[in-house]
């Protein structure tokens, strides 16, 4: 771990992604995009970390597979929501 300044970038990216996730948005798609942004920042972090362990990138591929599954699950829920509500606005949540 010779360079420590790069952590600020990872923590900043992660924090910005989290901030957009928890903010009040009009569309659901923005929340899913922020989730993908967090995944991207973790991908970057993982890449840099694994470079210090003799370039063993297998774990990174496993992480990528699971994150993509999760993202596609989010999109399928978005599709299900549009099929029943007609749009993906957060204002249409009134049941619970």
């Amino acid at each position, binding site marked *: *771990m010779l360079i420590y300044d790069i*952590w600020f970038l990872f923590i900043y990216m*992660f924090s910005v992604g*989290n901030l957009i*996730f928890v903010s009040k948005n009009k569309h*659901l798609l923005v*929340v899913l995009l922020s*989730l993908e942004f*967090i*995944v991207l920042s*973790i991908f970057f*972090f*993982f890449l840099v*970390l694994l470079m210090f362990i003799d370039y063993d990138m297998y*774990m990174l591929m*496993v*992480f990528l597979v*699971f994150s993509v*599954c*999760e993202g596609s*699950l*989010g999109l399928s*829920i978005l599709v*299900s*929501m549009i*099929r*029943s*509500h007609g749009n993906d606005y957060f204002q249409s*949540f009134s*049941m*619970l």
Partner: protein
Amino acid sequence: MNNNSNKMFFLFILFFSTLISISSNSWFGCWIGLEINLLSFIPLISNSKNLLSVETSLKYFLTQSLASINFLFMILIKFSLLKNFNMNNIISIMMNSSLLMKMGSAPFHFWFPNIVEGLSWMNNFMLMTWQKISPMILLSYYFNKNFLIFMIITNLIIGSLGGLNQTSLRKLLAFSSINNLGWMIFSIMISENLWLFYFLIYSMMISMMISLFFLMNMYFMNQLFINNMNFFIKLNLLINFLSLGGLPPFMGFMPKWIIINFLLINKFYFLTFIFMMTSLIIIYYYIRIIYSSFMFNYFKMKWVNLLMKNNMSLINLSSFISISSMILSTFIFM
């Protein structure tokens, strides 16, 4: 899409995801188990096509995915700071927070009553019992004692005070579940065996209650009063509610007794006070329900005639187990 083989497939993967998570060698395997858990639980709950089920599965997905991705980030930070033990406090607090958000414990509990309100009874049973296993066991691997004691107090208070104004049975059981999470997290800090014991008895009690409500198709409190139920069903309801609250001759008292024993021997007096007082509030609103349902004779409506159905033969057995298991458990060592 009421395809039973679908449900069996996803249930199978759900069971395996917990096993992957708790038996992995590294934190990364734990994360993988949590992800598979989310991936296989969402199809189980979003089966019907009405508005409520979509909203439920969306809220569940958003909170759980945020929690597990935060968990992974903290795992990576922990991994990158191998010899720096100064950051242990912060990292353990963040990891515990993300696991508490997965479980639905306070202060990250706001999604839990909402989602429980939107699910059927069987899905609720899965959510309240099985989904709590892997976050709890992961919590026991790396917990921060001071942070968790504060969270336990928050859990107890919110679980007891939140249930006071509820009329929906599902939300009532949700707040009771949050309260019991406080007891369970404390039992993790004592010993993992004790947690297992508490968890098994808690899931047995919840399964008895949920099976009763499921068979009678009851979702709200006024349904307990309108029907002219059989005496044995009402008695079973009484026994189950009191057992869940932790009153002495019933089964639910036993794990709480062991925890209080530990608390008093080790001089945790303030924590004992909070445990006792919040249990009192919970028993108050249980007794409020069963007193009205059990003691009073309501109008017998002619078009709601609740007979003893064919599949209710286990009610007597479950009542017997709830009453006598504390005494029968002393015969183990004979």
